[in-house]
């Protein structure tokens, strides 16, 4: 059975897994934005913690993903078997690029622009909202894109903790030495990564043009 035949024969299951996969990536990326951007901003306000925060995010990302999923299972509240564990692990992976790019983006702004903003009488909040975030948007969005694309890949491993997604086909294919099954999981995942990257690219340009 070739790939197309397999997919059309199992259309309902296939679309269900694609949807699961997309949900995992979407939720975890949104959470990583909600946590990572404020964390990044906080880091730029307190240079003394920047080493610790970025270091911690770095270390978390070096944990092999399969091991991280496994380590999370026995933990209370965030662990267990299922989508919740997978999302926690995915957020952990997505945080580093988001935090790092937020910090880099804001730090990369010409100090003279910041001083001009203060000199004009901007409060801290206005400086952030009117100057720092708009000027850092492109860099922050690049981090979000990396986070989402990495998330699509890592989410294939979520099947190992019972969270479903396209990894289900990959694990099943590996177990039964079935190339068609592996491809049925891997190829749509790759296409999804490309599509998400392109979609976020469009959003990035919109944000850039809206100012």
């Amino acid at each position, binding site marked *: 059975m070739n790939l197309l035949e397999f997919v059309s024969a199992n259309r309902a299951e296939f679309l269900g897994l694609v949807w699961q996969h997309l949900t995992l990536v979407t939720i975890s990326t949104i959470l990583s934005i909600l946590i990572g951007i404020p964390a990044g901003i906080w880091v730029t306000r307190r240079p003394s913690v920047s080493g610790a925060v970025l270091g911690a995010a770095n270390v978390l990302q070096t944990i092999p993903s399969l091991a991280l999923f496994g380590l999370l299972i026995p933990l209370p509240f965030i662990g267990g078997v299922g989508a919740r564990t997978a999302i926690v692990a995915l957020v952990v992976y997505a945080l580093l690029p988001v935090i790092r790019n937020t910090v880099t983006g804001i730090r990369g702004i010409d100090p003279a622009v910041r*001083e*001009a903003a*203060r*000199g*004009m*009488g901007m409060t801290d909040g206005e400086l952030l909202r009117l100057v720092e975030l708009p000027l850092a948007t492109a860099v922050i969005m690049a981090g979000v894109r990396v986070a989402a694309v990495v998330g699509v890949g890592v989410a294939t491993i979520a099947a190992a903790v019972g969270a479903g997604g396209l990894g289900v086909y990959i694990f099943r294919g590996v177990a039964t030495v079935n190339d068609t099954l592996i491809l049925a999981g891997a190829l749509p995942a790759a296409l999804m990564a490309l599509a998400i990257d392109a979609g976020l690219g469009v959003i990035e340009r919109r944000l850039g043009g809206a100012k």
Partner: protein
Amino acid sequence: MRGVTVRFGAQVAVQELDLVVARGETLVLLGRSGSGKTTTLKLINALCRPSAGEVIVAGRTTASWEPHRLRRSIGYVIQEIGLFPHFTVERNVTLVPELEGWDPARRRARADEMLTLVGLEPAAFRTRMPRELSGGQRQRVGIARALAADPPLLLLDEPFGALDPLTRAELQREFAVLTRRLDKTAVFVTHDVREAVRLGDRIALFAAGRVVFDGTPDAFRSSGHPEARAFAAVLES
């Protein structure tokens, strides 16, 4: 300014400074790089804090002002990079009115008025971005921005430093006319003695964090202080 000293760590930037700016006058702070003139300027809008002494603006010490209130009541013009690269000319010009919550129609009217004042055709410049302007045009926008909320006091930090000599002379002339016509008080930092003599009602000469001369341009030319003579010599060359 009374007995003001500013230290950055062990380094003294300005020392025991006593300086008064009279209403409606243009005071030029002249000096070499690192002589403390920019620090002195930033003391006025509280971008720098005195380590000792006090700075009084509009009857109140800068320490007792909320920094952003104080700064919005003072026009601030900076060299080159001062415009926000992601804002149109119009939004740059009306930034302080925006912060102050003016409604859009009033801001639009104000932007047009200010652009006209500094010699830029509003219809042609309103929607441009700073990167699409020449250096001289950018400085004009910078001045328009500083004037937009009609502050009584202007601070200018080498505003014409990066311009070609012709454009600079042109802007200096217009600036002198403008401050006189609008009756603005101005504190103007420069290292260019020609500019100082041309624009200043008074010149305060800085050397190593102290004011070594304070007086009219004419008195400056005949001053006996070695640093003043060094600068005055440039005028004759």
